């Protein structure tokens, strides 16, 4: 039991993060000061939120490449809403952002479920469509800090028990997803659908509908993150979070979520995101150009997926292999 715990994916990743922090601390002790670590966590919160949604989608053998575009569109809509009607309270803004993100996620899910288009094609397509719609509604203009109302910008920064609201939302989402994935039938269904779709059908699980719910969750989180993103950085334009979908997939793959579906955990997604968060925050500290970021996350994806493949190689004989190909 203890051995399994120590050699688990999450423990190895946690060890890697601790070693990484230790290495940085030898030269820059200020980096591991509690206040700075809290900053790093806060900075990584959007990635954690998106990685949780992506995890669920990947567990069901799908992928969501439209999360960053969804985030940007939701963020732009609430920013423009805030410019037009500065009096709209933050809870309403939150509802609008989450609702819009949910609808976009549902659209992905419906195309996968009802029209059975391969997930990669669906989300590659909606990625450009959502991104293009931002241009259409904004005419390519920016919504700048001075146009946003103070309440709109203050929400993610407001401190509560020593941490900003943004961090609390990430913490709450991690707990909620932990409960969802380990304590509910829907959570079980996500694993079942990805682990063995045919067996899931015989167990009475609707595979398509489960994937639809996965996309809906991912979309809802992307919408929520959209508002948090634009209010935290106090700017909204067409290209915000451009290419961030790859970072999100990277966080999941590093966190040990198998792209083949059915394998992964909330802890893995959290640690995968934190790993990338520590790296991206440490680069400027150790005086490495931020231009290294892209190559590092690419290398991390490849190493992680190679590592996963070694760890997950099935031991023993596969009986009734042909059953897997039966329709």
């Amino acid at each position, binding site marked *: 039991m203890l051995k399994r715990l120590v050699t688990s994916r999450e423990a190895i990743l946690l060890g890697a993060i601790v070693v990484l922090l230790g290495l940085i601390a030898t030269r820059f002790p200020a980096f591991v000061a509690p206040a700075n670590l809290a900053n790093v966590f806060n900075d990584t919160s959007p990635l954690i939120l998106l990685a949780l949604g992506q995890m669920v989608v990947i567990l069901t053998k799908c992928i969501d490449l439209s999360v960053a575009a969804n985030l940007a569109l939701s963020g732009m809509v609430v920013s423009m809403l805030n410019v037009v009607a500065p009096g709209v309270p933050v809870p309403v803004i939150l509802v609008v952002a989450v609702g819009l993100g949910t609808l976009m996620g549902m659209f992905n899910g419906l195309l996968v479920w009802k029209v059975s288009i391969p997930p990669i094609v669906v989300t590659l397509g909606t990625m450009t469509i959502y991104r293009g719609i931002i241009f259409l509604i904004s005419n390519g203009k920016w919504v700048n800090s001075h146009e946003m109302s103070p309440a709109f910008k203050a929400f993610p920064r407001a401190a509560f028990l020593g941490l900003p609201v943004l961090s609390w939302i990430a913490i709450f989402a991690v707990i909620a997803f932990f409960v969802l994935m380990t304590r509910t039938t829907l959570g079980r269904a996500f694993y079942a659908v990805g682990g063995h779709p045919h067996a899931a059908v015989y167990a009475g699980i609707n595979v398509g509908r489960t994937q639809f719910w996965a996309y809906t969750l991912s979309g809802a989180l992307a919408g929520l993150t959209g508002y948090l993103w634009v209010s935290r950085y106090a700017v909204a334009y067409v290209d915000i979070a451009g290419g961030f979908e790859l970072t999100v997939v990277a966080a999941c793959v590093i966190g040990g979520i198998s792209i083949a579906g059915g394998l992964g955990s909330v802890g893995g997604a959290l640690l995968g995101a934190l790993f990338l968060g520590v790296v991206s925050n440490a680069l400027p500290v150790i005086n490495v150009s931020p231009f290294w970021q892209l*190559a590092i996350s690419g290398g991390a994806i490849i190493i992680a997926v190679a590592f996963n493949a070694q760890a997950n190689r099935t031991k023993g004989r596969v009986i009734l292999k042909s059953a897997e190909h039966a329709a």
Partner: protein
Amino acid sequence: MSTTSHHVPDRLQSSLQRRLKSWESLLLVVAVAIFLANSFASPYFLNAWNLSDATFNFTEKAMIAFAMALLIISGEIDLSVASIIALASTAMGAAVQFGADTPTLVAVGLGVGLLAGAFNGFLVTGLGLPSIVVTIGTMSLFRGIAYIVLGDQAYRGYPESFAFFGQGYVWWVISFEFVLFAIVAVIYGVVLHKTNFGRAIFAIGNNPTGALFSGIRVSRVKFILFLLTGLMAGVAAICLTSRLGSTRPSIAVGWELEVVTMVVLGGVNILGGSGSIPGVVIAAFVMGLVTFGLGLLNVPGIVMSIVIGALLISVIALPRLWSYWRRG
């Protein structure tokens, strides 16, 4: 239908041809319709030089799309092609700084493309990793290297003779790129439809295990396909760099989407096993005409990408919805 024919073709070939016939003719109708719509919408469309310019919208992407078609038919995918262009272009730009001449630049472009393709192929066939994650990873890695080398700078100063690949004309309005596109199309068409190697690609895409048991070296074929895709990305990098005359790390960003769209629009099954090169050729013209026509109407590039994205989804969705509706 097949019962009345005297010639007894083999099963795979016949079903493929039937399927493709209808899809290709449908595409051709779409292409002609867009052509007519364009000539009505803009008075500048029907001009030999304008039409020649329009071909630059798709020739580079289409050359990658042919190799990508083979790869997708075999059941794999390569999302790193646009990043390979960035890497190859950066390498050529760096070579220029050391005073490389045009033949050396071409060798560098093709060589980097081959190396990148070999790296993808090794990870997928050697280590047995899923190509979609591997190439999402190399997509970041290859472009990331271009960013490390260039940062916010750009390479310029390509030799004068290098400009021919992207800006040269062979005869009247016929550009070098268009000729290259036509030659590459014929080569890939012959390889896919007339050789044992092409047959093996279809076999692998339909049933990899079955193909293996029929004596096809599945891993080797797939490795060669990744090599070819990398090579074509290298060719596209040479043409594009020559056409632009400079290299930035953001070169060809988002092209992987357009290349995959072109392949899928051309009737290649995204899940592997079927497709044709003539289909991809017509799809290339369709996409080139759409983007060029929209450009003449002053539609901004990002709106065109909405059209491309919608095209990608609807092209796959419509036949499925159609059969869904017919079944009732």
